[in-house]
């Protein structure tokens, strides 16, 4: 039983235009992967920074997975949402990153994108009323099949700090140097 411990935190979101942000995250993996312990998805608090253009989440991750295959290597999907005064929220960033395949400490920067408004009216609406366009299916986040239909705009970054521990991969001929 090869095991992976993912320990770390979703540190912060930087370079987003909107001040109040929260982040929905989920860890996705293939069929051969099984969760042993921990939470596979979650949502951070709403956060804003007074001075900088960053929102600190410091959302802890502690996931223990075990696997029977390399296929379907876990990946972290993030969706960043902005909140306005009216307690309305809309997505301002989608992104994902594969877990690094080497043990040790890592700092991941997940570049995110959001759906571009496709009309003048929508851009106005987004600016004032809040509420951009959200993905109908979240599998667009990671699958490239229908992505070409999207018109997106790049958004900020999510910074994730992780340390990974791999166990017993060497039993199956996978070695980490």
């Amino acid at each position, binding site marked *: *039983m*090869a095991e992976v411990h993912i320990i770390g935190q979703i540190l912060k979101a930087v370079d987003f235009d909107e001040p109040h942000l929260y982040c929905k995250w989920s860890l996705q993996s293939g*069929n*051969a992967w*099984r*969760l*042993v*312990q*921990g939470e596979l998805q979650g949502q951070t608090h709403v956060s804003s920074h007074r001075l900088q253009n960053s929102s600190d989440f410091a959302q802890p991750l502690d996931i*223990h997975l*075990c*696997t*029977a*295959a*390399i*296929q379907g290597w876990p990946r972290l999907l993030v969706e960043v949402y902005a909140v306005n*005064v*009216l*307690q*309305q929220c*809309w997505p301002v960033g989608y992104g994902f990153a594969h877990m690094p395949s080497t043990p040790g400490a890592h700092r991941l920067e997940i570049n995110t994108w959001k759906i571009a408004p496709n009309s003048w009216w929508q851009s106005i*609406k987004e600016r*004032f*009323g*809040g*509420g951009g366009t959200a993905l109908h299916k979240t599998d667009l986040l990671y699958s490239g099949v229908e992505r070409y239909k999207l018109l997106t705009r790049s958004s900020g970054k999510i910074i994730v700090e992780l340390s990974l521990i791999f*166990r017993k*991969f060497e039993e*199956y001929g*996978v070695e980490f140097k």
Partner: protein
Amino acid sequence: MEREADSVKSKRSKKKHKTQTTRSYRKTEREVQMLLSQCGKVFGQQDSQESEARSLQFFHYSDANESAAISNRDKQRIDEVASSPNLAANFIQIELSEPPIVSPQLHRQLHRYDNSFLYTPGDRLHLPLQFIDGGSDLKPYQIRMLNRYLEEAKANGNGGKLSAGLVAQLTDSDSCRFIIDATLYRSNCPRLFKGVFLAPVPFAQFQGLPTSRCLKLCLKQLRFSAHPQFLEEHRLAQQLEDLYDLYMHNVKNKICKKLREELQIARNVAARLIDSSSHQQPQEQSSQLAAHIQRQLQLTQQLRIRYYAESTAQRVLLQRLLTQWAKLKELRKQQQFQCTRFRLSLRLVPPADLDASCSAWKERFEADLAEVYREHLEVYYHRRHIWSSEQSSVSHAKPPRKPQFAEIMESLKAEYERAFQDPEEPRVYLLRLPNDETTLHSRPSNEQLNPDRNYYLKLYLDDQFVAQTRSYRLEPDLHVDMNESLGVLLNRSHPEQLNIWLYEKSTITSHSRRLALMSTPLKVTERGKTVQKLAFQVAATSAAVRPKLAGDLYLHIDYYCPDGAISSDLDDIQKLPETVCQTFRADRLPMAATAAEVRATPRSPSDAGHVIAGPLIFAEQQLQLCGIAELLQNRRFQLLHSRHQQRNFHTKQLSFVPALEHEIVELEELEPHANVAQVLDPGTVWNPIDLHKHRGRKFLHLLYETITSQCVQRAKLLQTPLPLIQLLGDGLEQSTGWSALWRALCSLLFGQTAALPREPTWQPQPMCASDVVQQFNISLQVVRATGVPVRSRHILNVEQQVRRSSSTGTSSDLSASLFVTQTLMYSNVRPFITLSYGQRLCRSRTAEGSNPTWNEQLQLTGQPNDLREDLKISLFDEMVEQQYTDEAADIYQRVQCNWLGEYRVPMSSLLASRKFEGCIELSMPKVLVGYKRPLIESVTNISVEQYPEFKESVHLWFYLSIEPGCQVTPLQIGGLACAELPELQQFVRERRLELQQLLPHPQRYVEPLVCTSHGKRVCLTRLLEPVPLPNETQLERVCRFVSLLSPVRSQLDACQNFQGVWLDNQALLDSTWCSAKDLGVLLCNYMLSLGLECWLVLGLACPYGECTFVIYRQPESGDLLLVAPTTGKRYQLQDIFCPLTRVYSIVAAKNIYINIQTEERVSMTNFDVQNGECWLPLFNKRQEAPQCGIHKLDYVYKRSYELSQLQKHIERKIMKKISAWRTTRKTFWNRAFQPHLLRILSELENLSTSAGSRYDEPAYSEELEREYPNCRLYGFTMNFAYTNLAAISERIRTTCIHYNNNADVEFCVAVHINAYVNDVLSVWVFLLSIVPLVG
């Protein structure tokens, strides 16, 4: 080059319209040409203008019609090379509208994979070069080039001639330039190939080019020609059939007629030729003509011979047919039955004109004779000629004989007779009659024994199973008529063979036997059907197992390509013969050869499996580290996962899971495997009955809770008006834009709260009364009791004996008056009353006699820790036992309290109804050892009639109240969905308003729409309907059964009231828990199904509060009797001891009658519901009461579980508890009494049901006392419905039998369980304390 140049000139002159080209195109073209001219010298002298024209022509060739001639010259060089017939096809035209031109003759070539077709370039020159002297010093590449052009010329059908110029050019010794040619050549292939995608597949499995083909099979019939049931008749009939088919085929094809016509033509031609030869004189022509005539004559002869043969054959066939038919008929007649269907009808047509036919025959014969004679003569002359020529060289030879005309005529006549019919002979027409079932006569009975045989076919294409026909019965004529057609659409793979297996379906087992294989190669045919006859044959293995079988299958095979184009597009690629294949692949691909071999031989379908190469493996699986199952079976993973899920008690708390698997193995050994699988094992840990009771209780609680919360929610919804605008706002929550902006502005400016107030979701709050009632104060005013049992003589004697034995007693008791002694004699009981709740107890003073008066108030304060417990009013007898020690001064008194009876009041009902008062009947043990019923004669001299209060049971006058009471908020069932019609609801609403004016006591109105266990409101009358009985048909037994269903007593629950939930029979009987009112409904329903006239009474009863009773009319006497469903006791209507205290209304199945009498006492109430002054019907003719539909009418009772285990459990529990309670002394258990007690108990259940409510004193106690005179016995029986073990021990604890301080006391316990259906158990416990008498 010059040629090209002048062609361009001529072209330019002829050019009328120029194709427009863009500037950029011209520019690039010029650049390209410049580059070309730089690198080669070919186009060096050509100007750019010309090159542009060339390129134009290149691309726009076809539409420049007038330039065709120029192009011919222009491309002459290419012509020389390619020598294509159509120049326009030299280029691939980019013309989308027209289909590409393809030479039609090249379609569907036949290819063979063969070495001979492969062209291997060699260094040897293939063509002779005549004009070149130095042919030998041609360079190898020149030779190869020449060969190549030669081959190409051959292929193009130019006679394999190369033009001399080309040869000269090629053989030019110093020309190596012809390879470097800047001109763009395109070789022409008239064939258009279509791209075909083949999935990558190992070579062994490659099956050929994919096309789709359609195979249609029409299975006509199967005919057995060898079969165990095969008879002579079958053989004949089949032969006949075949003959007939052949004959009909011949007749249809008209071979004879055709031959005859041909012969006639040939004769005519010959005659004409001979005629012409006589006219024409020229020598050389005549010789040619003679040869021609000779040939023609030979042809005529051959035709004639063939004609004769055919005709003979047909005639013979006909004759055979007729003889066979005669034979068959004869056979059928002989064997008295007919099992084949074949029938022929003959029609004889005599020649119409005998003379004409005779003359025609003669004419023909003569013509033939003349011809034959001439031929013979010719042969003779020929031989003669040869002979005469040979005569010169060889002398010894006979001259050929001249043909004899008579002989020839005779032979011809014989031949004629054989071949043709006589002129007088009538013509025979044969016709096969259609099958007719009536012609079949059944066989003799001894052969009828053979069962019907059924056959079916399985079709395989190569080895692939395709289809299976239905099974068909074998007809007596050994035909299996199928007439089944099926179509297979084949994509990709093209099977080579069609294999059909014949199966015989077994009549006994489901297996069927494979019999024979028929196979035929599949070939693509035209869209027409080919009829085939497949024969099969199976040799007999051993006579019993497999008989010899043979037969034919008639089928139509239609194998074609569904879209003709595709099939014609693709060449037929045939396999090379096996031997050639072997030579090809011998060393390289041995695998393929074997595979081909395997495929070539048809296999039985059973062993088809092993040929299939390994299963399809997804790459993902191959790349896995280990199987998923292996991962899931990992012990460590299981532990971690179950800990994560938090479901398992054992792994939930696990703080340490070892990292290595071998450590876990030890761990696994330590803890049993069960902890992972199942924590709760119902078989060992829980008694199934306990589980049932527990679950039933849980179910009921859940039901009550759910309905309560639902009610509250609905009521709340009804109360609050709909917040329209807010709801609208809620709906617009998603909307963004200006409205949101406006709201934001508003919130900023006016400080309004922007967040919309949301409806808080209702949290189900447990209606726990313990929150409400913190402290309560129960006060019991005990007034008096009657009929307290007295100590039996036995105990009395003992006491006296003790006293007497204590020598000179100073006590003055005995020296009292006669009256006193009399009283003492018979009413020697000192009863007192205790009031207990939980651990608290309060007792009254002791009174004397069997009709004591206390008139005392008992107070009990406490907290209702758990409303599950009952408040108990117990009756005890205080026995003071004086112990005398040696010193006279020390007198010890030992007080012994003997429990005589009790009365239980559910705490919740007490809290709800605040107070109970009046007279109650204590529940006394059926057998009370040591005591006996007070005899009225012994007490007083007054007759029974004048002593009205004296009853045979113990009654207690009391007043019980509780402070503070608890007002149960009634369930707001009004909000629940109503199953009744709106008119009815409206009617009920109006009626309620009406009635509330009319009623003397407004609480008597019971809302007729009640809530069922489904959470819907229905009319009360629907609840009354006959339901299935629990295997009991006796009224007493049914009452007993109902009384044993236990009313749930837990929390103060509004669901138990009339406003609460009314269970249907299924919910009640499945859970065996209910509220008191449901018992009445059930009992009433049972009585209805027993056919009794009965009503349901809604009212107040003493220990239950709101409760239902049942009134029924006794069938024998016609009296109305009141039944208490909770106890099963019956009361007269006038009985003042009836626990029913108030009557609100009476419910019948048809109507609800509401009590409008001012009289409140039940005993004085008029129960005549037809009396309009006393009872007011709710429904009238205008609005009938709805009926039925609530109960489950096909309810099936379940058998109770095994009881012996439970009996042991109870017994053990009681013994353990009593031993535990007697902390100071050791408890001895006497088993000697047990069988005796058990016998008594087993009789008691019957007694209790048959004797009804009467407090009969059975003779058991006296019997016991008589049997054991040396012991002082005290004991009693207890009877209750089984709920759980804790309840039993609680009941026993209240009897205080364990408070026996006598050192020598021994106890005995016996438990008997009487089971009804659905785990309704009546538990009988006999407890006995034995004190042996010493001295």
